[in-house]
C-alpha cells in the first residue's frame, strides 16, 4: 500500500501539444480517486504517466513517498486495468491472472493458490481453463481485474474499465469494482468520462478539462459547490440548466429573459460576491430537480413552454424553453451541448405531475438553491 502524489505534472509531446498542463494531486492510501472529464482532457495521459507508459515532461511523481519519474513501469509496483482489457489471448484465464506472479518467479504452488483465490473473489473459478476468446465481455473484464488484484500492488490504475460493457453489466460491475477496491484497500486512480461512474465510485473526484484539474472534491461537494460553469454542467445528469441573466441595480430582481424573479436576502448571504454584480449580466445555474411544479404565478416562479416530456417511470423529465439565452460551458460531452437549443432546459418533476407538451408550465424557484457564475471568467460566486 502506498500513496500517490503528483506535483506540477506536465506532459508536452514533441509536436508541441501540451496534453497535461500542471497537475497537483495527492491520493491517500486506500483512496479511490476518479479522474473524470470529456475526451481529450488529458485524464488518460495522467494515468499513463503514473503507470510509466508515458514519460513525464515536468513535475514530480511519488509513489509511496519515492520519486518514480524515471523508474521503469515494471519496477513501480502498480497494476493497471486497460480499457480494452489487453488480455493475453494465448494464455488461459489462470495463466493470464498468474502471469505477473510467474514473472516475479513465485513458486508454482503459491501462484496457484493466489490465482484460485482471486478467481473466487471474481467468480471465475469455473472458467480458469478457458482462453479469453471463449469468455463474455463481463468475464474478460473480470479477468483483467483479477490480473490486477492478484499482484497485491501498491496502487491500482484503471483506464475506463467499464466502458466496453453493456449498460446493465456496467452498473453491476461498478458496484463490484468498488467492493473489490475497498476490500483490497489500495490507492486507486480510476479514469472515466462517465460522470455517473465518477460520482458513484469515487472517494474523491477530480474533474479535468484541457489538461488541468478544474476541481477535486468529494462527489457530493462537487455536485453542491461546483467552482465553475464547466464542473457545474459536467457533473449531474441531466446537466444543470445555465442561463444568461441580469441582476438589477438595486439587487432586488434577477431578469431571466422577460421574466423577473425576486432575490431573497438570504441569497446574498450565501453568495456574498453577488452584490458586486448589481447592474451586470451574470450566469445562473439551476439543477433540474430544483424546479418544482408551482400552481400560481408570482414573483418567485418561472414560466416556461413545455417542449417534450420523457417519462422515466419514477419521474418526468420536462424539456422546456424560456426566452432567456442558454449558456453552455464550452465542452463537448456526448453531444449534449449540441442538443441544447436557445433557452432550452430540463426540469425533473414527480411522475404523477400532469404536463402537456406545447403548453406553458409554472415552476417554483428557490433562488437559494441556484448557482451564480461570472459570465466572463465562468467562475462561481
Amino acid at each position, binding site marked *: 500500500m502506498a500513496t500517490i502524489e503528483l506535483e506540477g505534472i506536465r506532459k508536452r509531446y514533441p509536436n508541441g501539444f501540451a496534453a497535461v498542463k500542471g497537475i497537483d494531486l495527492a491520493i491517500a492510501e486506500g483512496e479511490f480517486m476518479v479522474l473524470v472529464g470529456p475526451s481529450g482532457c488529458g485524464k488518460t495521459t495522467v494515468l499513463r504517466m503514473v*503507470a*510509466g*507508459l508515458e514519460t513525464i515532461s515536468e513535475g514530480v511523481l511519488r509513489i509511496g513517498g519515492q520519486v518514480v519519474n524515471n523508474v521503469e*513501469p*515494471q519496477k513501480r509496483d*502498480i*497494476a*493497471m486495468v*486497460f*480499457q*480494452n*482489457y*489487453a*488480455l*493475453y*489471448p*494465448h494464455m488461459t484465464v489462470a495463466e493470464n491472472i498468474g*502471469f*505477473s506472479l510467474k*514473472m*516475479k518467479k513465485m513458486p508454482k504452488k503459491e501462484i496457484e493458490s493466489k490465482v484460485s483465490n482471486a478467481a473466487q473473489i471474481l467468480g471465475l473459478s469455473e472458467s480458469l481453463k478457458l*482462453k*479469453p*476468446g*471463449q*469468455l463474455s*465481455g463481463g468475464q*474478460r473484464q473480470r479477468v483483467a481485474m483479477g*490480473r490486477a488484484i492478484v*499482484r497485491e500492488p501498491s496502487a491500482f490504475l484503471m483506464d475506463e474499465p467499464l466502458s*466496453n460493457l453493456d449498460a446493465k453489466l456496467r452498473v453491476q460491475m461498478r458496484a463490484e469494482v468498488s467492493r473489490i477496491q475497498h476490500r483490497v484497500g489500495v490507492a486507486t486512480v480510476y479514469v472515466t468520462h462517465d460522470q455517473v461512474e465518477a460520482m458513484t465510485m469515487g472517494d474523491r473526484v477530480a474533474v479535468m478539462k484541457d489538461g488541468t484539474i478544474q476541481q477535486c472534491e468529494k462527489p457530493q461537494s462537487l455536485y453542491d459547490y461546483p467552482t465553475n460553469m464547466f464542473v457545474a454542467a459536467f457533473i449531474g445528469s441531466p446537466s444543470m440548466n445555465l442561463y444568461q441573466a441580469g441582476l438589477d441595480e438595486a439587487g432586488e430582481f434577477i431578469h431571466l429573459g422577460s421574466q423577473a424573479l425576486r432575490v431573497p436576502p438570504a441569497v446574498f448571504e450565501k453568495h456574498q460576491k453577488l452584490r458586486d454584480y448589481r447592474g451586470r449580466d451574470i450566469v445562473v445555474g439551476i439543477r433540474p430537480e430544483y424546479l418544482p411544479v408551482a400552481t400560481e404565478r408570482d414573483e418567485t416562479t418561472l414560466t416556461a413552454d413545455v417542449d417534450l416530456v420523457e417519462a422515466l417511470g419514477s419521474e418526468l423529465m420536462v424539456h422546456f424553453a424560456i426566452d432567456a439565452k442558454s449558456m453552455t460551458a464550452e465542452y463537448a460531452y456526448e453531444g449534449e451541448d449540441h442538443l441544447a437549443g436557445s433557452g432550452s432546459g430540463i426540469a425533473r418533476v414527480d411522475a404523477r405531475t400532469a404536463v402537456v407538451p406545447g403548453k406553458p408550465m409554472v415552476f417554483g424557484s428557490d433562488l437559494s438553491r441556484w448557482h451564480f457564475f461570472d459570465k466572463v471568467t465562468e467562475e462561481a460566486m
Partner: protein
Amino acid sequence: MKPESSHLKKKHISPYSTVRWVILVITLLIIMVPLIFVIGGSFKTSANLYQHPFGLSFHPTFSNYRAVIHDGGMLRALFNSIIVSVITTIAVVVIASLASFGVTFLSGWRGILPYGFLVIGLAIPAQASIIPQFVLFRELHLLNSLLGLIVINTALLAPIAVFILTSFFRKFPVGVLEASVLDGCSTMNVFRRVVLPLSRAPLSAVVILVFLGSWNDLLYPLLFIQSPVNRTLPLALIDLQGQYVTNYPVLFAGVVIASIPMLILYVVLQRQFVAGIMAGSSTG
C-alpha cells in the same frame, strides 16, 4: 426482392462468373499438367515416356527412384540441402523476428534507420552484387562450403522476413504489450512470452518462404560450390541432365523426391494459419 426474381437469378450465369471459371480452369491446368506429367513420368520407363507422354502407365516402375536413391551423390545432396535450408530458416527466424521487434517498437531513428537499410537491401537485385559477393566470400574462405550458402541465404532472405514480420507487429495491440510490461516483463520477456507466441501465423509464413527460397536456390550453389560433396539438390538435379541425352524418368523421380520435404513443411505449418489467433485479447 420478390421470390420469383431471386429464383430466376439463381439460374442466371453472369459473364463475370464465366470469366472467373475460365481463368480458374486455365490456372489449374497450368499448374496440374506439368505436375501430373512429372509424377506420372517418374513411374515410367524412358521408352514408355516417349511413347505415351501423358498416358497412364499400367505397369508403374520404381526403378527410377531406385536409381536416384542408389546414386550416392543424390542422397548427399538431399542431406546438404536439408542442412542448408534448416539452418538458414532458423537463423532467419531468429534474426528477423528480433530485428522486426526492434524496428517496430524502438522509437525514432533507432527503428527507422535499420528498417530503411533492409528495405533498400530488398530493392537491390541479388545479381547486381554477385561479383563483389564472390570476391568477399573467397576472401572469407566461405566458397565451396555449406556455411557460405547458409550465410548468403540468410543475408538475402532476412530482409523479406523482416518486411513480413514488421507489417504484422505494427498491427499488434499495443495494450497487450503495455500490460505485459506492467506485469513485470523485461523487453526480452515481452518478446519471448507475448509477441512470439502470438506471431505463429506470420512466423510460419516466413518459415515456408525462407525454406522454399533456400531449398530452391540454384544461383549461389552454382557459383560457390565446386566440390561434389557439397552439392545441394538443385545442383544434383542439374547433373542428372546429360549434355546430349537426359534420362527424364530418373530426373522426374529426383524432382519428386526433392519436393517431398517442402510438401511436409506445408502440411505441418498449414495448421498454424488459423484465423483469429488474436481473438479474445481485447473487446473486439
